[in-house]
């Protein structure tokens, strides 16, 4: 057993960027549509003037956020996502602006699940969800082989039943 616990090193698939971009795009579109619709309504139905102003500001904010989430965020998130799984514990480190470090001892792990939406499936990736009694943590966008290997390793070490979703 090493004296200190090192920072996690393993990274996740680069394809995650493309997938997250697409998902963010799909998420932001309805918001933009609603904001745009409300501005149109405010114009057409002659709502009080300052509502229109606020709506414009909102639209600008939503647009900025959409650009950030679609173009900038996925790149940094993928670059900074790290995980490490040893016999003793599981470590996660993620986040660009706000970094999060998580440590979960192997003995506390209750279940390991994988999930895979259509987008992930296309690239052969899985999200791995590791759950304790207290919380669940997800390692996103792992290559299928790696994900299953990790899942089996954790399952045998933590002695738990695992399930596929």
């Amino acid at each position, binding site marked *: *057993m090493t004296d*200190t*616990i090192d920072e996690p090193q393993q990274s996740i698939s680069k394809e995650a960027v493309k997938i997250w971009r697409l998902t963010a795009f799909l998420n932001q579109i309805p918001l933009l549509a609603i904001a745009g619709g409300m501005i149109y309504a405010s114009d057409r139905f002659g709502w009080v003037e300052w509502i229109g102003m606020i709506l414009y500001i909102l639209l600008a904010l939503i647009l900025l956020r959409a650009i950030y989430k679609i173009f900038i965020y996925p790149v940094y998130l993928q670059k900074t996502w790290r995980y490490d799984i040893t016999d*003793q*514990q599981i*470590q996660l480190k993620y*986040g660009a*602006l*706000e*970094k*999060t*470090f*998580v*440590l*979960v*001892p192997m003995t*506390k792990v209750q279940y390991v699940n994988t999930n895979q939406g259509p987008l992930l499936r296309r690239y052969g990736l899985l999200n791995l969800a590791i759950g*304790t*009694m*207290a*919380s669940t943590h997800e390692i996103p966008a792992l290559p299928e082989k790696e994900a299953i290997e990790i899942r089996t390793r954790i399952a045998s070490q933590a002695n738990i039943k695992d399930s596929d979703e």
Partner: protein
Amino acid sequence: MSEMGNRIDNQNEIKYKVDAPKRMSRWWVFFLIIKSFRSIIIPLVITIFANGWEDFDFLTLLVIGIILFILFRTILAFLSWWNFKYVFTDDELQITEGRFVKQQRSISLDRIQSIQQNTTIFHRLFKLTTLSFQTAAQGDESTHKLEMVSIKEANRIKDHINDVKEKDRQEIEEEAEGEFTLAPSKHYEMSPKDIFFATLTSVSLFAIIPVMLTVINQVDDFLNLEKYSKALLNALENSMFIIAVLGVFLFILAIPIGFLTMYFRYGHYRVTSDEKRIYIKKGILNQTEFTISKEKVNGIVFKKTFIRRWFGLVEVDLVSTGELEQDKVETDLLFPFIGEKRARLLIPEILPSFTTGLTKEKLPKKSLLIKLIRPSYLWMISTGALLYFWIDFWFISLILFVLIVLLRIMSYVQSYHGLENPFIELQSGMFSIERFATKHRKIDMIAMKESWLQRRFGLVTLIVSVRSKPVHHATITDIPKEAAMRYYQWYGKR
């Protein structure tokens, strides 16, 4: 109901012979009918008031409706009662129930993590009580209730479950000699003086004033006091002094009301424990007894509210994996209010496996700096709105600013953390202080969050999560990264 259970226990053997499953007490039917009234009482009252007393036809219709309703509910209640049966064996509790469709569930006794006993006035009249069994499962599956059993039967059931658990533990631990559970020792009994003091220091005291004002208002509408009070009101409006006096008067009146409420909730509050379990009993009209296994306690929380802090009163909660559903009384409460010194003496007695009051480390000066520097969106938005809409009240923005600064300073001063293997303690808070104590092996997860601003200062936010329902996260913000890493590393090693 025939009681055909026999119980013989020797040191190592348990025989609980049950020849027939048992039903709830007969009074349960009555109770269910009354309970069903609760759902229609409000629409009923409204319809009566809406249609007036005079309409005879309407009244007859109403009475017929009510009678049919009672008839209907009686049949349903009777069916519920007839079909609800329970059996305790050496390993499990089996319940069959269902008015029309028969359902069965079996609960393995070793899954039961805690038992709560609840006795309302209604129950007490007939020497009955309610038993709730809490398991580790989530949601609907988690609690199983026996809604109306005799107190004698309840005690018998509790003893049986405890015996079974003893036996299991003995088998696991392979102890040669029988293990004696010490007789419960009484740790704490709340006195009326405690309750009075707590009432005085309770914030909800102030909340009673608007309630009373509403009551006065209602009475006014009803009795048409306005004629008499017009003169009084005029006099009032013209004198701030009288308003102040009235305020004080209402406040003083609120005290006995608050006291009575507290007394009914916490009267006869008693904490006892034996080697394995803690028993908390409370309530006057509605008595509740909560049992929790000491093993299941994952952490202790000390809460000091704003006012109570100055009087040295704390609230002590237990974080455990045996919590009951939210609609019941606060069951994770150990002491609702107790002197701090007394708590420090009692906790080691009740939970000898926990050490609290560890050497505390304060936050460095740079934490104060970051807390003050952090922009307050609340302040910015309120000031913006204030200046735009109510510019006459601009000084409120200033007051708000000073308030926020003060709160942040308090948050800095009141944050502590400490580690004395295997115990860890975190304290933080602004208005009220919360201190959380736990052990290494009870911690489920440790996380650190580092915002952009914190990165510049070398600070992080530390989160320690402990298993419970719901999960308990103890947080301390703006703690030096080296300190947090120390805890992180400490946790990672076994």
